[in-house]
């Protein structure tokens, strides 16, 4: 492959099987001697199990629980607080207690209703507000960090300030609604258990299985099936399902399939953390910011899971794209007796950006200044320190991107046009809003160096085809195509001679999880290096193998304790402009136009990038005004897709987008991360547009019709 420009699109590797439906996702797979599993789940939010009474099982049906786990009863994630099967305490409605296995699902569902469990029920914590009140009680605070300017200094500044502006901002749940529900199959073999399914992180699962089964490295194997969407929802959650099917397969000596239906998936799987963010900002008479304190509270749900890392990213983004003098932040993950929250595209950043964009916008309006002019005054520049005393090293193109988007959207004349429209119309009001944002690419801090330690392998076959041997999942984002393209281009080999089979831990080294906008930038760079090495030693007709390991480029070392240093090696950037029309009679918001500029280093494939932009924005915009999930006394209230309300084709409009080139030295062909960035600006831009239409301020997302009607 010899593309003049790597960004030139090529056909996707997995197109044919997907368009014809003949590519087998996990629910399409049937293996010999396969039984189904269903989970007995806790009906209460918090309590102790007193007794379990099982029904009489027909032949071939049985229950599997904690006593059948060969290793510790823990799903290995970060902390050891998540049981595989709860056998003593239950901490949320839906927590798995037992698995029933057998041939027919109908019979399993009947048996499920006949399991009788008695509990000693205790007082649960249901809401984030309750948890904030009780945050000093034992076990409620699951993680916390604090950093920034000395509080005495801030207190002195505040005493001399013209005004102190305090706001409290809330964000709700967001549910992934990947179109393919979670599914996992444990295949029983004499000498190994193979776990196959829908997943983003093969080695997270493999490590969890080695722990649960107390077995050797060669006794478990994890294979990714084509994965029908992930968005973070298949990052850590599948580890628990993998433990369930592997323990069950090991116990009953049959292959066990566990596939959720939609309502089960919506009620028991991880979601984006609801957040409460408090801002306290001192300003002078001209409206200049003198200091800012931000407190972030995340609802972790019942287990710690990945919440501490989500909180880190929320805090690292708490000042947005701005250089704020005398900035201080602290944050908490608090435990509630609700379904555990976890990874979701953006990973803590969408909450923070919604909050800071809202707050800065409100400060500017209080000072009667134009929000965008005000934001631009505080925009970080190359060489500026980050809020953790790291540095923005690379060129920042935000000013150009903003200017370009203002022109593309005809922003200034729209403002005037909408004002006139709103004066003449009582019922319908139009508004336009902006958002400015970034995304730190890759793992936070020293994660790549200390925890992930990625390795990639290229294998050249005798017929001179090259195989990518890495553990990263294509979940729709297109890495089968983009990573193959990087290798084909570096080797100057035809695209169809580069192959990327579904990853299988027996075949591939640990190149890390498919998360954190790291795949293209980190894994892609390793592959580019491996391909160049292979090219240098290429021998036609000979089998060859090349391995590359991650090398950390040391900058200002990250210290998690003091929360200082370079949190990310590089940043991607974005600007969104959104136009809406609000119906003040119904509270309905109609998207009219969406404009977006991004900078992701260098695009590896234009068409795939556009897919990330449109899809990410659709999710991000909907997070701001459409998608609403709630929990009542520990029970998720939206059990179906339409109760929840992700966008349909009628809700989205065509998006005018552009991507700016700004090649990054440590990314393949200059590429940085792109997948999460595109979601982040949606909600704050839609909020700003609704506020502009109604000339009001909101302190929450989603801004649903109910919220709008109440505000009028």
């Amino acid at each position, binding site marked *: 492959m010899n593309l003049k420009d790597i960004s030139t699109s090529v056909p996707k590797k997995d197109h044919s099987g997907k368009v*014809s439906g003949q590519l087998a996702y996990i629910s399409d797979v049937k293996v010999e001697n396969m039984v189904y599993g269903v989970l007995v789940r806790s009906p209460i939010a918090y309590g102790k199990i007193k007794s379990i009474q099982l029904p009489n099982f027909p032949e071939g049906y049985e229950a599997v629980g904690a006593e059948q786990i060969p290793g510790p009863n823990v799903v290995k994630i970060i902390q050891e607080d998540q049981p595989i099967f709860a056998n003593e305490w239950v901490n949320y409605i839906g927590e798995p207690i037992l698995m029933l296995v057998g041939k027919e699902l109908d019979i399993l569902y009947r048996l499920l209703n006949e399991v009788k469990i008695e509990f000693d029920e205790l007082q649960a914590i249901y809401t984030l507000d309750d948890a904030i009140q009780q945050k000093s009680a034992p076990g409620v605070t699951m993680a916390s960090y604090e950093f920034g300017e000395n509080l005495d200094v801030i207190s002195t500044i505040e005493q001399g300030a013209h005004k102190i502006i305090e706001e409290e901002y809330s964000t709700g749940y967001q549910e992934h609604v*990947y*179109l393919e529900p979670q599914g996992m199959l444990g295949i029983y073999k004499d000498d190994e258990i193979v776990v196959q399914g829908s997943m983003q992180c093969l080695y997270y699962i493999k490590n969890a299985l080695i722990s649960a089964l107390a077995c050797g490295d060669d006794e478990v194997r994890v294979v990714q099936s084509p994965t029908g969407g992930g968005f973070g929802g298949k990052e850590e959650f599948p580890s628990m399902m993998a433990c369930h099917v592997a323990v069950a397969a090991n116990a009953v000596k049959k292959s066990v399939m566990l596939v959720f239906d939609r309502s089960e998936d919506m009620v028991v799987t991880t979601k984006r953390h609801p957040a409460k963010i408090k801002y306290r900002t001192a300003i002078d008479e001209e409206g200049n910011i003198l200091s800012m304190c931000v407190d972030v509270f995340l609802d972790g749900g019942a287990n710690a899971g990945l919440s501490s890392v989500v909180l880190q990213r929320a805090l690292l983004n708490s000042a947005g794209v701005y250089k704020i003098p005398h900035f201080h932040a602290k944050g908490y993950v608090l435990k509630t007796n609700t379904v555990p929250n976890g990874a979701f595209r953006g990973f803590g950043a969408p909450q923070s950006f919604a909050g800071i964009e809202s707050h800065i916008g409100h400060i500017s309006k209080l000072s009667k200044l134009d929000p965008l002019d005000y934001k631009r005054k505080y925009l970080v520049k190359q060489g500026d320190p980050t809020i953790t005393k790291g540095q923005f090293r690379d060129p920042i193109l935000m000013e150009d991107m903003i200017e370009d988007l203002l022109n593309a959207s005809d922003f200034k004349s729209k403002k005037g046009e909408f004002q006139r429209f709103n004066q003449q119309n009582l019922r319908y009001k139009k508004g336009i809003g902006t958002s400015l944002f970034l995304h730190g690419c890759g793992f936070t801090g020293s994660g790549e160096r200390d925890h992930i330690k990625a390795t990639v392998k290229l294998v050249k076959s005798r017929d001179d085809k090259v195989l990518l041997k890495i553990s990263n999942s294509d979940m729709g984002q297109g890495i089968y195509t983009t990573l193959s393209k990087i290798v084909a281009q570096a080797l100057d080999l035809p695209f169809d001679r580069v192959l990327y089979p579904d990853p299988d831990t027996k075949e591939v080294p640990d190149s890390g999880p498919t998360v954190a906008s790291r795949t293209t930038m980190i894994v892609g760079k390793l592959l580019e290096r491996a391909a160049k090495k292979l090219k240098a030693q290429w021998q036609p007709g000979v089998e060859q193998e090349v391995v590359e390991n991650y090398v950390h480029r040391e900058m200002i070392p990250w210290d998690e304790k003091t929360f200082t240093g370079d949190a990310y090696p590089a940043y991607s950037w974005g600007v969104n402009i959104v136009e809406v029309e609000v119906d003040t009679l119904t509270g309905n918001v109609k998207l009219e136009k969406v404009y977006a500029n991004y900078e992701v280093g260098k695009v590896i494939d234009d068409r795939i990038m556009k897919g990330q932009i449109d899809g990410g924005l659709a999710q991000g915009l909907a997070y701001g005004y459409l998608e609403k999930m709630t929990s009542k006394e520990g029970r998720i209230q939206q059990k179906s897709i339409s109760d929840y309300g992700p966008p349909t084709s009628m809700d989205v409009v065509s998006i005018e987008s552009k991507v700016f080139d700004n090649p990054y030295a440590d990314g393949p062909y200059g590429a940085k991360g792109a997948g999460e960035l595109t979601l982040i600006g949606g909600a704050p831009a839609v909020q700003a547009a609704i506020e502009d239409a109604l000339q009001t301020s909101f302190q929450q997302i989603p801004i649903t019709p109910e919220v709008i009607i109440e505000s009028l």
Partner: protein
Amino acid sequence: MIKFTLNGRLVETDAPPTARLLDLIRDEFTLIGTKEGCGEGECGACSVFVNNHLQNSCLIPIGSIDGTDVITIEGIMESEQFKILDESYSSAGGVQCGYCIPGMVMASAALLSKNPHPSEAEIREGISGNLCRCTGYNMIVDAINLAAKKGDGLWQKK
């Protein structure tokens, strides 16, 4: 015994009349192109044609399909129209995770056979019963628009 035509072939089953058409297609006839996304008729991943009407097969008890003509994605895979849709989805970049796509292709074919020159608004309406979480729909809308143009004259052919 329920008898119907499946992808042009007369078939019969002794599954109970309350069984879902979706399960019958997938389990008994092992046609995997029809996917289950919600089981409640909200996502369109299980779209099939019953007597040439686009339907969610998860909502159809097989008792109601006796004597009908059922077509799944496998039944159109060899057609010229499918070839056009396949190419259009590829060049417009309409496919990401792929799980909604067979249903989306069925909805596209249904729309174009009724309305070979749809406007953007008509395309959006035509696929409004099919949920996609990856693409934000725009590149799917582009794909259908492209297919309408590339396949001009083909769509109303049987």
